[in-house]
């Protein structure tokens, strides 16, 4: 874990099985079964509750917990299953052993395998299929005005039958236009010298390209002088990646404005279909744009109205 008091860190990462966590506000009890993982901001455990198996995230920081819960709440309002685990509870636990309050939240336990293990086990043909699913999930998220941020294989689980991707760890999830809250260097376009850390859809799409490259080059590599050239050379040297060279380079250069565009061109590449360019496409595109603009005015109006109502609501709540 990162910036954290060492005693607390030790405790949070090593909660023994059988520990019972009881929330001070909602009085729900959770019995730790085993650790699921830990990272920069806390630790996640599998736990038993009245409602069955759940995942519970503990942290030293109420700020972290509250931010992530905010995002999960928003996600629950978005239709579609692939976005984050559903939120079940949020509370504080008084830990007698270290005499401290530990904030936590409880979410749906997603029984699945991480992205890379799944591909290693089931075969490389799954890579591009899972990426297509991922792009659909991202499209939804982007449509709602968010950017996932900390997109990496560890945060993508493959669950269920048929295998479906689920996004985990909303710690990096950021409103578009703001600075990305949390990221991992290797998947960050800023680290590669290929763009800013301002949250826009292309930020996530860069990470998707990096996930594909990393899937084909399992050993982690470091950035060299010219990041773009290095990645290009690697793409060309790998048979799988070469097939998607055009799409990958566009994602790396930040040329896709929408996840859907990347998805469409990836599908085309799978079928050896070179994306059509020129005269044929431009008229239909123009029309699409016009439609979109009037739609945008409507949307803007709705957003402004909602914002006003929300501001009034907030004002009332704080008073």
């Amino acid at each position: 874990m990162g910036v954290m008091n060492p005693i607390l860190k030790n405790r949070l990462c090593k909660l023994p099985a059988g520990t019972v966590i009881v929330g001070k506000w909602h009085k729900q009890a959770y019995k730790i079964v085993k650790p699921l993982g830990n990272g920069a901001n806390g630790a996640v455990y599998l736990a038993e509750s009245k409602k069955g198996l759940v995942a519970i995230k503990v942290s030293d920081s109420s700020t972290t917990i509250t931010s992530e819960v905010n995002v999960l709440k928003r996600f629950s309002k978005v239709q579609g299953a692939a976005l984050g685990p559903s939120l079940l509870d949020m509370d504080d636990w008084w830990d007698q052993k270290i005499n401290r309050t530990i904030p936590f939240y409880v979410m749906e336990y997603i029984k699945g395998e991480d992205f890379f293990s799944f591909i290693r086990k089931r075969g490389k043909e799954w890579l591009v299929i899972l990426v297509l699913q991922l792009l659909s999930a991202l499209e939804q998220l982007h449509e709602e005005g968010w950017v996932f941020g900390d997109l990496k294989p560890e945060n993508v689980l493959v669950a269920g039958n048929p295998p479906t991707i689920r996004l985990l760890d909303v710690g990096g999830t950021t409103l578009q236009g703001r600075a990305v809250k949390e990221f991992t260097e290797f998947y960050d376009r800023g680290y590669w010298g290929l763009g800013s850390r301002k949250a826009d859809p292309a930020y996530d799409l860069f990470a998707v390209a990096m996930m594909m490259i990393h899937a084909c080059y399992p050993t982690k590599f470091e950035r060299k002088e010219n990041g773009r050239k290095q990645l290009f050379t690697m793409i060309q040297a790998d048979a799988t990646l070469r097939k998607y060279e055009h799409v990958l380079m566009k994602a790396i250069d930040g040329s896709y404005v929408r996840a859907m565009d990347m998805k469409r061109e990836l599908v085309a590449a799978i079928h050896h279909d070179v994306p059509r360019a020129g005269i044929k496409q431009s008229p239909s595109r123009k029309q699409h744009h016009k439609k979109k603009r009037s739609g945008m005015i409507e949307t803007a109006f709705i957003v402004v109205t909602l914002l006003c109502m929300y501001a009034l609501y907030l004002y009332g709540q704080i008073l």
Partner: protein
Amino acid sequence: MRKGTLRQILLITDGCSNHGEDPIAMAALAKEQGITVNVIGVLDQDVMDEHGLREVEGIATAGGGISQVVYAKQLSQTVQMVTRKAMTQTLQGVVNRELKQILGSNISMEDLPPEKRGEVMEIVDELGETVELEVLILIDTSGSMKTKLPTVKEALFDLSLSLNARMGDNLFSVFVFPGKQEDVEKILDWTPKLEALSSVFPKLTSGGLTPTGPALRQAISHFQKKRSLRSLIGRDESYFEESSM
């Protein structure tokens, strides 16, 4: 809530001070003046000695900031993370104080029921995105740090990348200690462009003394100078420094 300015000193060092005032006292002084002091201890391979570790933690605690000890390799990730976390922490303090004023009691976000915290957090997030930030970076260039300086430079570029992605404005200034003639030397005056550093940084020479305390003192007064200049040209004063953090 009004918009204001956050002031931070980011100290990057690899060991103990051995010259001049107690750096912990200087950090406490900074805090009193509304400046947060964050410290990053840089390691080679081995662990930092007990004394150095205690000083790093002591300075950050007294300065109301965050400390973190890392290997040079992790410097970039750490510098931007520590800076952001410290911002959030300070803003949280500001918002908590506002809450106390509104609710008239001794209430902070943690005392609110979980359902209510989300809204407070949104305000903190919003402030973190839009607030003006002034960061003075103080780099230890004494003997043992020499090999780490290229990594430090890289980490600072990375920091500016992260901070410049915010909507709010940033100002950076860079000091090194010990300086060529004096305890501390300014190598970059207040500027929104930390990249301007590239031309000056490689020329550094490393010496034997580590005057961390005096360096902190000078850093504080550099904020002061800036402020008096500001009031001269009649720009907004900052708000967050009024009360101690």
